[in-house]
């Protein structure tokens, strides 16, 4: 078995969820790396889209911005932000990746602020950007993050992007598109999905070197557990080779 770091593991595991012929809107960093890795392994026709308008580019390197020249390099379409967002809203986009400072048991995400006064937050983050849009409008939302009990929290300081809101049918009752929502959370310790009925976060597989106890200890709310809890298939040799040599040779992402 190979040696790999947390970021490499999360990228390799996340990439396997992106099937050939699917569409994915990505940001810079790990999501872009995971999508490029999927393209170079099992999903040559995964269509990578950027919210600034670049569609299906042949990425010469990791973009610095979701709108920089690299995201349009040999692309099939140079579109606009409204067109990309409307394509999501129309139901043509399968996957997206989000990040955030906090996530709760229903997959709601905070990337706006810490504190309790919106006008004077303790810490201000960038805010939604396109995160709320993609979380609302794409079919399946994924997240890659290192897990700790501050980040995986009972109550968010601010719900930037919708997960399953308060669980059950609440997401759809709020008016968000039927059938959309959080799909997989890939952490350094485990892979989580969501319970079909309650929409609570549920551990599906445990990463090598971690225990149930580790996973629950590093989560600020009570996790559900799959009946058939599996061991996460660790990164394969060829995944790591392609990730290191072709996707991110300068270790911009996997060197973090």
């Amino acid at each position: 078995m190979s040696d790999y770091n947390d970021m490499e593991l999360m990228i390799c595991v996340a990439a396997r969820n992106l099937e050939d012929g699917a569409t994915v809107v990505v940001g810079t960093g790990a999501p872009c790396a995971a999508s490029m890795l999927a393209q170079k392994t099992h999903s040559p026709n995964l269509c990578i889209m950027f919210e600034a308008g670049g569609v299906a580019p042949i990425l010469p390197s990791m973009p610095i911005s979701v709108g920089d020249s690299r995201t349009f390099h040999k692309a099939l379409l140079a579109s606009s932000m409204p067109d990309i967002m409307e394509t999501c809203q129309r139901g043509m986009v399968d996957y997206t990746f989000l990040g955030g400072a906090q996530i709760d048991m229903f997959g709601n995400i905070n990337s706006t602020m810490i504190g309790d006064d919106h006008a004077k937050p303790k810490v201000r983050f960038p805010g939604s950007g396109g995160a709320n849009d993609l979380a609302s409008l794409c079919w399946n939302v994924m997240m890659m993050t290192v897990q700790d009990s501050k980040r995986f929290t009972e109550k968010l300081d601010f719900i930037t992007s919708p997960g399953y809101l308060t669980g059950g049918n609440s997401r759809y009752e709020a008016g968000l598109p039927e059938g959309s929502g959080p799909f997989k959370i890939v952490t350094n310790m485990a892979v989580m999905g969501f319970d079909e009925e309650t929409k609570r976060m549920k551990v599906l597989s445990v990463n090598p070197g971690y225990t149930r106890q580790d996973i629950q200890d590093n989560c600020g709310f009570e996790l559900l557990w799959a009946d058939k809890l599996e061991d996460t298939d660790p990164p394969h040799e060829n995944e790591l080779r392609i990730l290191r040599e072709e996707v991110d040779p300068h270790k911009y992402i996997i060197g973090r």
Partner: protein
Amino acid sequence: MQTIDLKSGRNELFTDPDPDHAREFFRNKSRALKPKLSTVSKVVRDMISDGDYIAIGGFGAIRVPNAIVHEIVRQGKKNLGFAGHTSTHDFQVLVGGNCISKCDIAYIVGLEARGLSPNARRAVQNGEIQLTEWTNATLSWRLKAAAMGLSFLPARNMLGTDTFNYSAAKEIECPYTGKKFAAYPALYPDFAAIHVHEADEYGNCRVRGATVSDQDLARASKRVVITTERLVPTEEIRNNPEGTFIPFWCVDAVIEVPYGSYPGNMPYEYFSDEAHIKEWLTVEKDPQAFRDFIKKQVYDTKDFYEYLALNGGIEKMSKLRREEFLINGNGGGE
């Protein structure tokens, strides 16, 4: 009578979405095909007043009209409202000049993979800038609503979140399906600056790469200034009318500003100067150092040419051009 409970965001709506008020303005806006060449200093002096609501085209550090942004700081414009759509470096510079007092925020304090702007973040955390929350798509649609001559557009994002709660959005019921949608108020900025690849003297513009919402922004805004890498003869526009991205009637002034997006990326022209952007981010950590830095870079430079010269001039621009086109080496220039 409504059958469902409809919510409203609690924060302030900074601009008037009434389409009849906007129509009255546009009725009197000149749409004549006349030469509109101007200068950066004149445009900022004459077309922006303290308290105006402004918008900046491009994507923060891509195709950003940076000469205008600098001049707004240099002339000390104050209490501006700002469309914080997909802003990064532009917002950073404007906050460096203390120009902004209220902001529709989708994305402002971050610079994507580069990290966050310490100074912009400080200003927001101190409550110096009044914020109303939105998202990238929502600000796109608010501009589209205005470009369409409407007061609102419906959409399906933001629902159920604090992003909605701290916005000025309203929920509505779809008259056909009874479903709950968000309704976003049209955004008609007082002023917009957009940097383009090519324009003629009338303001017919061409753009490549990331267009973001600039087509709608040019239509939605009451006053529009174009900075362009190159002026081109109108004949060239007429030879390919499909290539016109913004038509002359939206435009009030045109200024040729080569390398006008520097240190931002200009697709198919030059890549971003990441080292210089990093300099901004680093120096901002210390407020005094940042004051010195922005004095040197903006207040003490006469114009954008001086800023370009200060940061490497033509040699630097050639290097960024080679980076843009993925050409290795120094191009033989040294």
